[in-house]
Structure formats: structure tokens, C-alpha cells
């Protein structure tokens, strides 16, 4: 039984009378508790795929099944986090984190009580009552992810969450994310441009091709867990990186460039 199934989902827009294929028919089957990365050049339909899974846009064809139930066009069934932290600047960190619970109708007091220990355990202790602009980019992303976690769905979509962070912070955040994933046993779908990041974090990597987006390969990452920074230097890691580089290099160049 798969947690999440994407069955022949595609998305076509009509722009200036012309049909533009954002994503060709794509099928994915993701078991519960997996960490899955999706990698590909910009414009390969990664974000379109996420928006469909999150129920924010409707696929042109195909189905999205969560625990066997069709969730096409229904939002609120999976957690979703974007590259921008999207914290509300007029709310404190604590009140930002409980946003999902509040929408669900949990009282503010109860929600705060539930969020407090999470903030303490995952590196935001002492920042509960700060406003977002007072925090560093890494800290804000932590708050944004905890907000998604506290919303408490089994599947979490992360769209380049660390894309805007510097290399040092990014490495720290990757370790932090792995810890959270192990603690909470969520199924994670993770979009990234960064091959190292994809290998370091994932069980499986889906490679998408350039526009029109199309699923090109699925690679299983045979690396021991828990992963450490030494993992980044192991032979296995290097050879996986080679495979991925080759896959991405086969891409046709954009029109006009040689």
C-alpha cells in the first residue's frame, strides 16, 4: 500500500491560444515514511506537480491518491512549505507556528500549549515571542517548517525550502530536517536544484526533464542512515552524484543558446 500515488497526472495551460505543457503524464508511487526528492532544471514542472498534490490547481488529466482516496482539487490534505518562509510579520513566532491549528479550530491557548515544546526541542527556544523580521533566514525557515509539521498531515511537500540560505546554514538545516523526519516519521517530498542535497537527504530521487516536464528516472539512494557529514565524501555518494550529473547533462539546451 502506497501512502501517496500520482497517477498519470499532467498539466496543460493555454497561453495566447497555444497549449503549453507544464507537466507530461507523470506517475509516482511513494510508500509511507519515505524521504523523496524531486530534482530537475527550472521550468520542469516541479512546482506545478506540488501545486496539484496540494490541491491548489487541478491537473489536466490523472489522479492524486492519498491513502487510496482521490484528493484532486482538495487543499488542506498535505502540508506544504515554500522557499519563502511566508511568516506573518504581525504575529510572533509562536503565533505563526500555530496558524494551521487555529484554522482547524483549535483554541489559541491550546495550540500554543502544543507548539511550545516543539519550539524548544527544535532550536527556537527563546524566540517564541520575537517577530519574524528579528530572526535570521535559517531560524525563519525552522519556524515555517514547524508550522507545517504542527498542521499534522502525514505527507509534507517542501519546495526548495533551503534555496535562499547560505551554504553553512543550509548544511545545518539539512541535519536538522533529518532529525525532525526521523522523530516524526512523515512522508516527505522535497524539491531541490542541489544534487548533493538530494542525495544526502533522500531515499529516492525522481529526476524530471526540461520543459515539457517529464519524469526521466527514479534512483534509489543506497546510503546508510543516519547520515553524517562524512556521508558526503563516501564512494557511494560520489558515484550517485556522477549518475545524477550525467542524467541532468543530457538535457537539451534552451533555444537560442549553443
Amino acid at each position, binding site marked *: 500500500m502506497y501512502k501517496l500515488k500520482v497517477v498519470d497526472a499532467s498539466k496543460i495551460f493555454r497561453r495566447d491560444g497555444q497549449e503549453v505543457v507544464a507537466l507530461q503524464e507523470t506517475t509516482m508511487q511513494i510508500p509511507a515514511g519515505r524521504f523523496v526528492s524531486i530534482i530537475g532544471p527550472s521550468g520542469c514542472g516541479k512546482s506545478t506537480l506540488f501545486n496539484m498534490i496540494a490541491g*491548489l490547481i487541478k491537473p489536466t488529466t490523472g489522479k492524486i491518491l492519498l491513502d487510496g482516496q482521490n484528493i484532486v482539487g482538495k*487543499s488542506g490534505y498535505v502540508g506544504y512549505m515554500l522557499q519563502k518562509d511566508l511568516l506573518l510579520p504581525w504575529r510572533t513566532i509562536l503565533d505563526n507556528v500555530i496558524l494551521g491549528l487555529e484554522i482547524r479550530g483549535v483554541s489559541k491557548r491550546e495550540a500554543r500549549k502544543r507548539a511550545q515544546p516543539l519550539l524548544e526541542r527544535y532550536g527556537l527556544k527563546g524566540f517564541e515571542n520575537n517577530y519574524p523580521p528579528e530572526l535570521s533566514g535559517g531560524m525563519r525557515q525552522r519556524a515555517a517548517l514547524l508550522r507545517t509539521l504542527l498542521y499534522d498531515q502525514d505527507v509534507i511537500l517542501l519546495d526548495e525550502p533551503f534555496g535562499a540560505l547560505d551554504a553553512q546554514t543550509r548544511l545545518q538545516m539539512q541535519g536538522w530536517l533529518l532529525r525532525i523526519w526521523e522523530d516524526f516519521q512523515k512522508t516527505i517530498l522535497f524539491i531541490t536544484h542541489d544534487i548533493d542535497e538530494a542525495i544526502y537527504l533522500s531515499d529516492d530521487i525522481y529526476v524530471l526533464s526540461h520543459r515539457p516536464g517529464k519524469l526521466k528516472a527514479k534512483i534509489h539512494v543506497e546510503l546508510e542512515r543516519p547520515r553524517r557529514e562524512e556521508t558526503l565524501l563516501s564512494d557511494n555518494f560520489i558515484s550517485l552524484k556522477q549518475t545524477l550529473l550525467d542524467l541532468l547533462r543530457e538535457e537539451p539546451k534552451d533555444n537560442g543558446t549553443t
Partner: protein
Amino acid sequence: MAQPEKKRYIEDEKKRQQRMKRIVFGGQIGLGILVIVLWEVLTRFEVMDPYYWSSPSTIYETAKVAFLEGTLWDDLVYTSLATLAGFAAGTLFGSLIGLSFWWSAYYSRISEPYLIAFNAIPKLALGPVIVILFGIGFFSKVMLAFLMTVIVTALAAHSGIKAIDKDLEKLLYSLGAKRRHVFTKVVVPTTMPWIVSSLRINIALALAGTIVGEFISSRQGIGRMILYAGQILDIDLVWVGVVVLSLLSMLMYAGTVSLEKLLLRGQEPKQ
């Protein structure tokens, strides 16, 4: 041999700031006093004609009489209440109109040109019509103050609506939000700084609306007092009216600033 002690210069930022604050505050008070003293001296030595310019001491004496023996106090209350009522109603309705544009893009785009057109009408020119419609009582003044403020606020709120981050809305929907959640948790707080930025202008506009209403036709109010004093050539009393209105305006402005702080809680007002 003993080393000569080196002179150390440490910049004390706090001290410097406090010094600057003191000087600025002292200068502001000093300038005000200087203007009043000059006015008094120049009119007393008849460099400026005291018949037209009156003088601070005469204005003070006339005001005392008007407060204690005349109706100045009642007039002041009348004008203040009309202004505040018009301001409150205009700001509230204006905000609601502006915020309502978020609910439908069609409704918003269809009504926008009318909003701008209505804003272009000189509302004070409608004064006589308002008086005919609503009478010469309190309500016609409130109506004029209301008309002066409502569209300004609606336009300000509309700008706020246009500045909402679409990704924030998307995020809320992904958390299972309904439209009303997005409205209360994103739309209203995002728009608040825009609405607030219109408050300071509105309070002055509302006062202008009320005064014009009183000019046109009224039994009470500072505006009526000024008009009456002008007709009987009591220029000292006209000056009393102007000074009292200025003080009222300053007081309301200060009140607006506190209201802003309360509404924004840490956010900055936007233009």
C-alpha cells in the same frame, strides 16, 4: 620614567542622542514663544494693525469672556462631536468598502473607476445639497465630514488589498483555510497599515467638512461663531475661533497618532 597618560576619546552615542533631543525640544518650544511674543510686540507698537491682526493678549481675553459668558464651550463640543462622528463613520465605512473589494475581482474592477470619479468630486461643493437634504442640524455636519473621509479611506484600503502577497493566500489555503480565514488572518492585517495611513489626513478633512457645514447654515458650532463674528466685524472673536480650531485640530491629530499605535502594534504605516 612614567608614561604620559594618553588621552582617550570615547564616543557616547546615548549621551549624544539625549543632547540632540534636548536641544530640539527646547528649540521647538522657544520658536513658538518667539512667534507669540513677536505678534504681541508688533501689534502693541502698531507695526501690525491690531484691528486686523488682533494680538495674543486680546485673543486670550476675548476667549475668556466667550468661554465664561458666551457659548464658546458648547460650540466647541458641537464641532468636535460632529467631526469625530463623521471621521469615525467615514473611516469605518471606507475601510469596509475597500476591504470588500478583496472578495471579488469582478466587483472590484467594475467599481474602481467610479470610486476614483467620486473621489474627484469636490465634496464641499455638495454642501448646500447636503443641508437641503439633511437639514441645518447636527446630522448635516456629520454627513459632510463623512463624505470628506469615506472615499479617501476606501481608496487607501483598496491599495492595501492590491499589495497582498498571493503566496500568503496560497499558504493559508494549503493549511486548509476557507476564504473567511484568509480574510481575517491575512487580508485585514495586511491592509491595516494602509487604512491607518489615511487617518491623519482624514481627521483634518473631517474637521474641514464640519466647519463648511456650519458656515453654510447652522445654529451652533465654531464655524457658525466665526461667520457671525465676521459679519459684525468682531475680528478679535474671529481670531479666537481660528485659534480654538487650531488647538482642536492639534489635539485630534495627537489622538490619531495614539490610535495608529494601537491599531498597528509594531507595523509601519504605508502610503
